[in-house]
């Protein structure tokens, strides 16, 4: 395998240094093969971060390969600087058995652009009635640790309690999609001043907050780990902050779009802005940014949700919910947090180290010598406009089209292989299905 010497990168924004890669690991530059076998990358002006980890993506395979495949999703991840992505369980068939999660895991290895870790369903068929075989998925080759019915809330409080307790067996975590179903029947957008005027059925903040409140109390009661997907309201932030102050093992996630966009955009009736949970108000956006800066919100999750044109280029009420986001996540978070005390170390914390820790993705989150060489280089001074048509994902439903951002992802090293070079995808990892075994 190739050796690399990344020269002069600003490491985690903390000062310039060199990073050497050999045999898929970060090594002391002294250990590179004598005689200059290593490819030297001039990284002056670039910032090196540990490869990004996304706790929340939808890769659509199996079942909706016209919207995305594990391969195109993996390429999108590499282009966005992600060396590890967690694929949500709402595929067809649902990832609720060892067989399906192993299939997704295998497809990820064959693709070879990022580490694809399946998320297992909490309940059979996402139906919220009976626990799926969580143990079998945990013990499968996919080694599932995160379980979620994402897209659907685990509403039944008793079932949620049992799931939280059961995954302690293998240090698992339940990732809850917090949405009280009765309060959100037919919901089309955030319930607020804008929905009142547009006459679109509302999705009230309380539908999210009431489930989070219940679940942090349940997690406290049974002493389990709980992760809250895509927190979207100021009230949710308050509840998570309160729970953390009590020592509840809760972690929270926010999407780039909820840090940036508001329900005012729904006035266009353009379904590119239709997403679940919905875009909220400016007060919510400000609270989410604050919470990300102060650590109340632990991680960025993209909730990358590709849809085909026919599911988005329709009237608002018929359109599917969701936005793509892996390729624009980091630049958008940088823009969203520009007014906060939030440096590149914080960026690494919320987009790499903490999600790696929560999910047990041991090969990610570190630039220390000896760590797996999962690294992303970014150029913080590369203003450019977002053009969804140029992205690797099949999804064109990116709400940031045309927005100018300052940061560009230039290089991604995936277990020592340069899958993204100067902003262009290269080749999959040459070790085929066995990169992590090195």
């Amino acid at each position, binding site marked *: 395998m190739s050796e690399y010497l990344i020269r002069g990168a600003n490491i985690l924004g903390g000062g310039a240094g060199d990073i050497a890669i050999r045999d898929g690991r970060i090594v002391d530059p002294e250990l590179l093969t004598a005689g200059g076998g290593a490819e030297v990358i001039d990284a002056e002006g670039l910032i090196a971060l540990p490869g990004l980890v996304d706790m929340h993506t939808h890769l659509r395979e199996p079942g909706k390969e016209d919207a995305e495949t594990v391969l195109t999703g993996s390429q999108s991840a590499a282009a966005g600087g992600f060396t590890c992505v967690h694929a949500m369980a709402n595929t067809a068939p649902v990832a609720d058995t060892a067989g399906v999660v192993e299939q997704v895991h295998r497809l990820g290895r064959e693709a070879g652009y990022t580490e694809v870790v399946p998320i297992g369903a909490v309940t059979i068929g996402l139906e919220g009635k009976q626990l799926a075989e969580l143990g079998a998925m945990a013990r499968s080759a996919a080694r599932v640790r995160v379980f979620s019915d994402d897209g659907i809330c685990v509403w039944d409080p008793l079932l949620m309690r049992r799931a939280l307790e059961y995954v302690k067996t293998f240090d698992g975590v339940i990732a809850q999609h917090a949405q009280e179903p009765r309060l959100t029947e037919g919901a*089309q957008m955030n*319930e*607020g*001043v804008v*929905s*009142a*005027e*547009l*006459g*679109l*059925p*509302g999705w*009230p903040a309380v539908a999210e907050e009431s489930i989070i409140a219940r679940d942090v109390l349940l997690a406290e009661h049974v002493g389990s780990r709980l992760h809250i997907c895509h927190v979207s309201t100021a009230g949710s932030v308050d509840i998570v902050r309160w729970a953390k102050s009590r020592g509840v093992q809760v972690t929270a996630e926010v999407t780039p779009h909820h840090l940036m966009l508001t329900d005012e955009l729904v006035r*266009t*009736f*353009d379904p590119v802005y239709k997403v679940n949970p919905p875009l909220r108000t400016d007060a919510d956006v400000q609270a989410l940014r604050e919470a990300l800066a102060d650590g109340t919100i632990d991680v960025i999750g993209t909730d990358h949700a590709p849809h085909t044109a*026919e599911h988005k*280029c*329709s*009237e*608002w*009420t*018929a359109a599917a919910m969701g936005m793509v986001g892996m390729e624009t996540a980091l630049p958008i978070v940088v823009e969203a947090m520009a007014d906060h005390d939030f440096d590149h170390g914080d960026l690494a914390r919320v987009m790499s180290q903490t999600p790696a820790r929560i999910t047990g993705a041991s090969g990610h989150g570190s630039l220390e010598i000896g760590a797996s060489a999962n690294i992303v280089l970014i150029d913080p001074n590369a203003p450019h406009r977002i053009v969804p048509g140029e992205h690797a994902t099949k999804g064109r439903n990116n709400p940031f089209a045309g927005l100018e951002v300052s940061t560009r992802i230039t290089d991604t090293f995936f277990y020592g292989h340069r899958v993204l070079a100067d902003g262009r995808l290269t080749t999959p990892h040459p070790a085929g299905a066995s990169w992590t075994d090195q």
Partner: protein
Amino acid sequence: MKHLLDTASLSRAEAISLLDIAEEMALVSAREVKKLPVLRGRTVVNLFFEDSTRTRLSFEAAAKRLSADVLNFSAKGSSVSKGESLQDTVQTISAMGADALVVRHSGSGTPHRLAHTGWIDVPVINAGDGTHEHPTQALLDAFTLRRALGGFPASGAVKDGPRGQGLDGAKVAIVGDILHSRVARSNVHLLARLGAEVHLIAPPTLLPWGVETWPVTLHYDFDEALHQVDFAALMMLRVQHERMHESFFPNEREYSRLWGLSAARLARLPRETFIMHPGPMNRGFEISAAAADSDRTLILDQVENGVSVRMAVLYRLLTGQEDHNE
């Protein structure tokens, strides 16, 4: 003005101009030959994804009085029911040579979307979208009110009608299911812009969250509101019977008792208060027969004026003619 999608973005001058054109159109409707040749050779397509015979007929009559050809499309039994997309449907119809689309759809925002996607390049008129807006209904209500409050015949041809006027200072109450009503939303915007003082009277369950930000005065108690304010007009809204199964109110009897325009409430109204309803009415539920048939209802005038107002909208959008007042 390229489209008529809502009243929220209609200026006072534009609204008054449309009402004034409608006055001219009312003169036409009184002539022996109720036709103007202005849209001869143009085709207006009524694209109705949701049933509404009354509104469709009104638009059809309006287009025909302007000598336009009319094509009627209803989603039932069409390819839409076989899963055809909105884009394919409108592009197919547009390819047949539509010069304007009149769109009724159950989803809020659909006419707006048709006007802005670039799928078609003809004027779009919103004939009611979900619970969003129904701008021609609000215009015909304003037209009717302007006539009635100005002391003119509420419908029919009036030579020197109330041209150039708004509804300044008129106290108008909209009563009933505001939450699910596109008529209410369009009326709130338009009446306020024309200078009326708008009151909403409804149970809290049938008011949208955030209604306090609207330019209105809110009342939960109908009798108290009638006691406090001498309304120039009450606009009663249709209430769907199904709402009681969704717990918006306990049952029809209680709704009717608290928010219906009963004979007793009718008797307590000032002599000059007009009664309006966009139809179709649920007699005995939101409006009593006594109120519906009283001599101060404008309900049939509203229907008649609907044709004049829709003629004005079609004329304006298809000929690009502006009123002199602007």
